[in-house]
């Protein structure tokens, strides 16, 4: 993200703002307080830099369908941090931890303006487009500016040796193509408009599983998909990422501190790229999988010792290997090479020796025991028979087994592509999706979405600021005035 100079951060693009933005009908002092006078000090006296710091007061009058929910969303409250940290602690330590969070976590929370007017304060702030309100925030300057070290690196392919996510490489999809506005603003879209629509999630992996792969890949999942591997594994045995993601960032030993001048900082002692299949610590109806990808989070039992002793006195009440949804989805991965890639092969599984390997053997206990896998599941003795039976059923149902997966890959000449070129996607994918075997897998229902997103996402993602603004003006009135 290019640096923004101090003057640029507060420079209003007069022409663009007054031509494009209905907010320009509102006086500066109405939202920002201060005074409309020539003297700078007097003008700024009592000024509110970010009126959306209180979303309901700042935005709620005109956006009553969004602001109250945004004020309670995880983006604003950061309650996910509380959930994770408090679960590792005791109630008597919560006030001290809350004090710690005021230094080290609060700066990350996002107000309405942090995405729709400016770059998030946590990454330096500064107007996105000269104070023009941007309906769809640009991905690289807002979403991945904060969600950088994991999501951004995975999705963009910035982890050395690992390609970016296929949804970006082929679909040119931006964050909002999956994470829709309702989710971003803490709204449950299934609740009618005239009722309380709070999502009421206290962590991103609590509550509904959004987004869902099957929203686009409905026909390619589970029994009836015609994809042999999907037919075999069904929809509840493991999450999609178990087969379709690659190595991602894991961290450990993060410690927070602050200078004598109260400037907070942190130190992450170690991080590495790794891929780990563990048992699902959040198994429920919404996430029924037995196996999921898990990631070691930065927390350490002494992470917050600068603020008090033994604050994480229930450290292993919550796994340090957490449910993860890596953003580096690939059709072909080392796991999909053959049945033996996973069955009977501990390499990809979070086995106890992995904890020792990464110096985390002291964490082999508590909630981590629900995640660690003793050994990779062996291939069932009747695997061949099972496969033949499923094949026969698919063919009897008129399927062709060419929808995707390893079997289809072979049928379509996948043998020639089974090496590194096929796995790493090569360079051809970006420009020739129609000719690529991936289309059969990613195709169908996704195409519509991809086509639509290609138009909208490119502007947002690739930072076509002016174009994005122009696009927005078409329906800006509806959105601004709270239509629907």
């Amino acid at each position: 993200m290019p640096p923004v100079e101090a003057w640029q951060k507060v420079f209003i693009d007069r022409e663009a703002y007054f031509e494009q933005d209905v907010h320009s009908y509102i006086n500066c002092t109405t939202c920002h307080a201060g005074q409309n006078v020539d003297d700078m000090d007097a003008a700024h006296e009592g000024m509110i830099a970010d009126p959306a710091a209180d979303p309901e007061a700042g935005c709620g009058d005109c956006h009553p369908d969004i602001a109250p929910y945004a004020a309670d969303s995880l983006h604003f409250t950061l309650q996910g941090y509380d959930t994770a940290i408090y679960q590792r602690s005791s109630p008597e330590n919560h006030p001290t931890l809350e004090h710690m969070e005021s230094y080290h976590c609060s700066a990350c929370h996002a107000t309405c303006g942090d995405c729709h007017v400016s770059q998030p304060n946590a990454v330096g702030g500064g107007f996105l487009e000269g104070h023009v309100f941007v309906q769809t925030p640009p991905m690289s300057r807002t979403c991945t500016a904060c969600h950088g070290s994991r999501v951004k690196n995975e999705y963009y392919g910035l982890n050395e040796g690992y390609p970016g996510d296929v949804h970006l490489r082929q679909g040119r999809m931006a964050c909002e193509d999956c994470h829709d506005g309702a989710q971003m603003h803490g709204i449950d879209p299934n609740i009618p408009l005239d009722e309380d629509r709070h999502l009421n999630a206290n962590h991103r992996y609590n509550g509904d599983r959004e987004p869902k792969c099957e929203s686009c890949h409905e026909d390619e999942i589970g029994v009836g998909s015609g994809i042999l591997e999907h037919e075999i594994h069904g929809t509840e045995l493991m999450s999609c990422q178990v087969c379709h993601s690659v190595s991602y960032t894991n961290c450990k030993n993060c410690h927070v501190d602050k200078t004598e001048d109260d400037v907070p900082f942190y130190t992450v002692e170690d991080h590495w790229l790794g891929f780990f299949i563990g048992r699902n610590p959040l198994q429920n109806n919404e996430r029924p999988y037995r196996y999921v990808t898990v990631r070691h989070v930065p927390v350490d039992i002494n992470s917050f010792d600068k603020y008090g002793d033994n604050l994480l006195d229930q450290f292993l009440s919550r796994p340090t290997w957490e449910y993860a949804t890596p953003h580096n989805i690939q059709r072909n991965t080392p796991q999909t090479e053959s049945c033996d890639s996973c069955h009977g092969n501990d390499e990809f599984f979070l086995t106890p020796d992995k904890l020792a390997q990464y110096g985390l053997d002291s964490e082999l206990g508590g909630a981590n025991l629900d995640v660690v896998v003793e050994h990779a599941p062996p291939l069932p003795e009747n695997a061949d028979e099972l496969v033949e039976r499923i094949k026969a059923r698919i063919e009897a149902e008129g399927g062709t087994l060419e929808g995707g997966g390893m079997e289809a890959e072979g049928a379509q000449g996948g043998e020639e592509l089974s090496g590194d070129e096929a796995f790493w996607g090569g360079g051809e994918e970006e420009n020739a999706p129609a000719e690529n075997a991936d289309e059969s897998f990613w195709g169908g229902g996704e195409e519509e979405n991809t086509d639509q997103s290609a138009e909208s996402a490119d502007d947002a993602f690739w930072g076509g600021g002016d174009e994005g603004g122009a696009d927005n003006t078409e329906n800006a009135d509806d959105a601004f005035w709270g239509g629907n």
Partner: protein
Amino acid sequence: MKKHYINVRWSLLVAIGLLVLAAALSGCAADTTAPELQPRPTDENAPTPVADLVEVSDSGMEMEGTGTPEVEFTDFACLDCHTDEEQLKALAVEPEKENLSEGPG
């Protein structure tokens, strides 16, 4: 004599007919009289006309058919400064960048 009497009678009939016709036609003429205008009855519950509003909280009301709210922008002192690139450059103070953190955030 009789002939003269007939002419007089015809003349009278024509004159009467013309009077009747004039009276009838006068009913079709525009009514130039009008009642005195009375003040329009007021409804205290009716919304205040948008043109009278200056408060932003009510600016969500649109002028019919225009698609834009009619609220006048008046904060030109703020605007003039924040659209003056040279002035902002002269006044801006670059914050001291102190990033002591290490590792992925």
